[in-house]
């Protein structure tokens, strides 16, 4: 059996690589849909501002897509290298779902991505728009498969266990497991919101530097409309997801709330702040609002939610971590809604593009979508512990039998590579953002299968070198 130290290292390694990876697909999903909207608006209005924005963001999309492919390579192997007991136990379900994700991604690259990045002068406007839409849908289908797999691990169904291993019985029930619709919606919207704030912050940066063009204004305006509409929707979806979790993983909710025991028939209060202590089995320094826990989680004033002490000690997730990660996510979500509302107010008074204080806020809010998304994932993943397949296999039984030495070597290697390699990639993306949208004189590159520029290498769609984006503005 694995000692705790090695298990911790294995979990840290997975958390590190998957957290790094998810940033890229999230922006890919959001930007793909943004590009489809931009192209649609351009076709409809013939306003070249949309076309300029399309060319600008498609370059950032290409670099980001490339980073996602490279960081995803590791993920396809990590289930086997690091979690071999899990792969053997549940691979008959999680393996095919991952295979479908990979097939979807390749299908995308082989076809529509190429037309989208390189087909401007080769196909008609309608066909090009269709390709962009297909790429956007394709990214969502990829999300579909990965989220289905993750959700199945959280709320497994449609299987039986033969000789101690999972055997799939009903693929429809497996794919559309109980938490899947909520998780898929929550993640897809998180990708949209993250992208909206990334786009908004890029616009705010340019406006603060007095690079006030119609393109930049349009970017800010669209991003803030998106924030205004989608951030509140995310709150509603998140609430529904929470109720679903309460039904299927009550221990997770109890830990998020830092809620240790129910007293008599008293309604559950909401702990606004506190420090859950797993050893002492209480939440220290708690500031509680009576009734509010019941109201939020049961939508009633008298029902209780299950408390942590009603679960055996070894089945409790770490409340200290997810109490805070959840509050970071929810708090940032509130700030995002507020930013959207402020934007609406300033739009009415006409100061949207001029109010420097507000622009600084939007700039500052740039990474919050991604931070909230990571905090949300930490909440749901730490919150399902100690299970890797909920109720069926414990994380401690899922790991490969590696020593702490092996895991330290590989973790150090991953940290080194990710920070050196992806830092350059992210830096390059930021420099492209800094260059800003260029009116009218963008020449989209030619390319295609077997040519210098090809969709298999998304970065080849970007003509800018490091040097050419080094000194702008």
């Amino acid at each position: 059996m694995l000692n705790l130290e090695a298990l911790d290292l294995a979990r840290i390694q997975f958390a590190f690589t998957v957290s790094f990876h998810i940033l890229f697909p999230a922006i890919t999903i959001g930007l793909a849909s943004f590009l489809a909207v931009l192209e649609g608006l351009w076709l409809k209005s013939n306003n070249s501002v949309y076309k300029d924005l399309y060319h600008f963001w498609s370059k950032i999309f290409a670099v980001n897509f490339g980073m996602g492919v490279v960081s995803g390579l590791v993920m396809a192997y990590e289930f086997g290298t690091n979690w071999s007991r899990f792969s053997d136990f549940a691979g008959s379900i999680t393996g095919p779902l991952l295979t479908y994700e990979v097939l979807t991604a390749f299908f995308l690259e082989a076809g529509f991505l190429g037309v989208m990045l390189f087909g401007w002068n080769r196909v008609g406007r309608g066909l090009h728009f269709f390709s962009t839409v297909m790429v956007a849908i394709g990214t969502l289908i990829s999300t579909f498969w990965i989220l289905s797999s993750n959700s199945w691990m959280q709320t497994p169904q449609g299987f039986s266990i033969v000789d101690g291993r999972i055997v799939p019985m009903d693929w429809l029930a497996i794919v559309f497991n109980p938490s899947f619709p909520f998780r898929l919606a929550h993640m897809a919207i998180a990708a949209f919101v993250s992208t909206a704030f990334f786009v908004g912050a890029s616009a705010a940066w340019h406006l603060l530097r007095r690079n006030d063009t119609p393109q930049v204004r349009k970017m800010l305006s669209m991003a803030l409309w998106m924030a205004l509409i989608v951030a509140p929707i995310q709150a509603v979806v998140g609430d529904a997801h929470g109720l679903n979790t309460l039904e299927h993983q009550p221990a997770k909710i109890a830990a998020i709330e830092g809620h240790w025991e129910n007293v008599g028939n008293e309604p559950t209060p909401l702990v606004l702040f506190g420090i859950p202590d797993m050893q002492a089995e209480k939440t220290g320094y708690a500031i509680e609002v009576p009734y509010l826990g019941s109201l939020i989680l049961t939508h009633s004033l008298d029902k209780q939610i299950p408390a942590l002490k009603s679960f055996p000690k070894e089945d409790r997730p770490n409340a200290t971590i997810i109490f805070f990660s959840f509050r970071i996510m929810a708090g940032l979500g509130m700030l995002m809604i507020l930013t959207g509302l402020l934007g609406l107010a300033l739009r009415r008074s006409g100061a949207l593009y001029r109010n420097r204080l507000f622009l600084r806020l939007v700039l500052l809010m740039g990474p919050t979508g991604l931070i909230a998304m990571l905090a949300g994932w930490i909440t749901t993943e730490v919150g399902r512990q100690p299970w890797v397949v909920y109720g069926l296999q414990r994380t401690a039984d899922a790991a490969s039998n590696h020593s702490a030495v092996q895991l330290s070597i590989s973790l150090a290697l991953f940290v080194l590579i990710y920070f050196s390699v992806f830092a350059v990639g992210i830096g390059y993306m930021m420099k492209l953002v800094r260059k800003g949208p260029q009116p009218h004189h963008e020449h989209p590159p030619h390319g295609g299968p077997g040519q210098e520029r090809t969709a298999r290498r998304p970065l080849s769609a970007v003509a800018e070198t490091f040097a050419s984006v080094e000194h702008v503005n």
Partner: protein
Amino acid sequence: MGIQGIDLSLIWGVIIAFGVMMYVIMDGFDLGLGILFPLIPDAQERDVMMNTVAPVWDGNETWLILGGAALYGAFPLAYSVILEALYLPLIFMLAGLIFRGVAFEFRFKASPERRHIWDKAFIGGSLLATFSQGIAIGTYIVGIPVVNRVFVGGAFDWLSPFPLFCGVGLVVAYALLGSTWLLVKTEGMLESRMRHYTRPLAFVLMAIVAVLCVWTPLLHPEIATRWFTHAHTVVFGGLVILGVLALVGLLKTLRQYHSHWPFVFTLALVFLGYMGLAFSIWPNIVPPSISLWEAASPLSSQLFILIGTLFILPIILTYTCWSYYVFRGKVRIGDGYH
């Protein structure tokens, strides 16, 4: 066995073996370029080398991801024990592939003064990825001890003479694939340099293969029995004879200044080596003890992914062929977009 007598495990075994072979052949020559890079210091010639694979290299790695994912879906037991047993070599391989993949792209974006940094990352990444892959194959041939579906070998089993020798062998094999690929795709100085390097590379590779032919049956009585029982001996004898013929063909066409044939004969050599490996372990997917059927996922899993794969695989193959067709011909100095 599958529905109505269709053996899905066999189909999946063939699909995955095909995918891995596509990977070895296609990523083989572009990893080979990274291995040959130190021999070609000239910046312009290095650009040409890069350009000979720029339009296709990312597609080459497609097969590696597809192979991994399909192994996971169709043979989860094999996926879990092989990947666990080969932990560090595979992590090193992934590290190498990331480095060279990113170096490949960023080299084109970097300024000329900074380009050498990415050149080094490209060389180091290619060498590390190839050497680790060779070690992984060697460890796999030696055998992965499994008891009750759990890997029971040591963490550093791969750190022994046979796998390390296989690591060196693969570096030479990929270098040969790279040098003969460049004969196809380049001209002038670069081509004649490659003609110069190909001969010794071919001889070194043959020496390595000869050593492997003696060493491998000594590792396992089972492999020895297999090689030297009647029916199989014919097959192996055939493979060896074809291998010798391919080597002769390679050397002959090299002397005659052919541009395409040396590469074709090198591909044949690699293919024969791959077939030799497949015959040595058949019908095991995890040598020495787990067969294709023992490692298989349930029928419903294999069937579920087969539907998608049969739809997508022809598309990927068509796209690949189309890419290579469009990209036919020599690459010259100054070609390319950068």
